[in-house]
């Protein structure tokens, strides 16, 4: 019974997160298997294609740093390549701060990371109007990063 309750709570939690942020919806297992891509439609198919062709939706930062690494620039250049071919897609870059930071500084650092990634995509030819930036500060677990999310 307790297990069922926990499961229910987790489900509700996941549903709430999706309702709040469509961009954060996790890719299903099929999204990672190219042979099943035909089953995906609309934005889910675009997301899967974007992730596969860009070599990653997320770029990572060193602790305390907002500078883009060489690997991050490579990934963003590939993302820009794809986004230029899909000007109809609305994109949001979500930045994340460091877990050990204070709350508001982490928000600002996450916003800076998102903005660095956004500015690099613009530099690589993606129309600025297609891109917006946001931050989750340290409110979601994981490494300091900026994730490129296809919203719709």
């Amino acid at each position, binding site marked *: 019974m307790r297990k069922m309750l926990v499961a229910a*709570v*987790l489900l*509700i*939690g*996941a*549903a*709430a*997160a999706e*309702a*709040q*942020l469509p*961009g*954060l919806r996790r890719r299903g297992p099929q999204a990672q298997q190219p042979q099943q891509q035909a089953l995906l439609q609309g934005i889910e198919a675009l997301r899967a294609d974007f992730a596969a062709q860009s070599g990653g939706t997320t770029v990572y930062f060193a602790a305390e740093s*907002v500078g883009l690494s060489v690997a991050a620039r490579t990934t963003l250049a590939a993302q820009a390549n794809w986004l230029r071919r899909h000007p109809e897609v609305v994109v*949001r870059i979500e930045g994340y701060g460091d877990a*050990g*930071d*204070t*709350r*508001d*500084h982490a*928000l*600002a*650092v996450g*916003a*800076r990371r998102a*903005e*660095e990634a956004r*500015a690099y995509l613009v530099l690589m030819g993606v129309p600025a109007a297609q891109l*917006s*930036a*946001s*931050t989750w*500060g340290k*409110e*979601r*677990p994981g490494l300091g990063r900026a994730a490129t999310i296809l919203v719709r």
Partner: protein
Amino acid sequence: MKQTILSLALLGIGSAAAAQQPGQPAATVIAIPPLTSPNGGSQGNEMLAVGWQVTQQIESDLRQTAEVMPLQPNRDDYYSYPEVTAPTFSKWRAKGAKALVTGFVQARQDGRLTVGCYVYDLDKGRELARKGFAIGPNDWRRAAHKCSGLAYTAITGAPGIFDTMIAYVAESGIGDGRMRRIALMDSDGYNHRYLTAGDAMVLTPRLAPKATQLAYVSFAGGKPGVHLFDLASNQDRSLLPNDAMSFAPRFSPDGNKIAFSMMTGANSDIYAAKSAGGAPQRLTSAPGVDTDPSFSPDGSRIVFESDRGGSQQLYVMNADGTGQRRISFGGGWYGSPVWSPDGQWIAFTRRGQDGRRVGVMRPDGTAERILTNGPADEGPAWAASSREILFQRAGANGTAGLARIALDGSEPRAVTIPQGGSDPDWSGVVD
């Protein structure tokens, strides 16, 4: 009042004396006989019953403080209505008290109650303070908090924390899906309620000085934005007309302005806007992160954090943005500064390899002292008395909770809340 210190040990109340730390000044002993009533008959008995509840609440309020030590109220110490303003000082002096609270509860024609409180200096045999107010028939707890504050202020000169409110972010569930709601309660934990529904992530509730309004950060628009919540009307609105990322709000001491930080491109700067609305005024322009502004109690200066020098440090500037200079030099990173209501201290979170701890320093950066042991303490908020700090402390399992610590260095105490909690804020005395 020129405070006379009396050693508790001399008073023969051993258990209370045992609670005293060596080297600390002893508390002022105060007598609180049960409140009386001018009413007669069965109504008089009802009022005496209310008075007894108020009396016990005053005792419980004052017992929480380090500076005032109440004698246990005794129902046999009944006195008549005229004695409220003419108490028998010698009786209470003989019991070792230095101060005395008397008062009454009176039924009014309109169904409400009038409560009067009087505070006396027993050594000098004179009145220190008095206050009377009308309350709803069930608001005796607030009446008691007002009396407690009257006594505490008369004895210590500092505002009491009894009639104040605490706001925080209530957290339930785990991981990304955990629900966060703005919660508000009286400082003694009563009247706990939620202000937001939990459908959007919320952070950093900040109460206006008299808890008439609350500013907080909502992610309802998919990115952080400062919202204002009016506690009288329950109206909620965005502070800014645009969708710029804004966060770290803090009211000015008069409640008319809100300082906050806003992103423009990759730059976080500090702005101030009228809480009633209007265009924000930009106060900082350094590249990098300027955030967490907090006003001095006279409103003339603002302490904030900035990483303009390469690492996150504390700076002070005039409220118009001029005269910016760094005040923290102790090593490590400094964030979330908050100016104390008496103007004497700035509380902060210091971040280092060994985690986050809460400390205080003078507004010129001297006399730095770390108060808590970490490893995950942050987000200090001052009590109205400037003698205690409320902060967020993560437990071993990662669940955040609230704790309070006195500046005298005693052990922090956990604050009881229904679930997890973070980002506490503590209001000034409510009108």
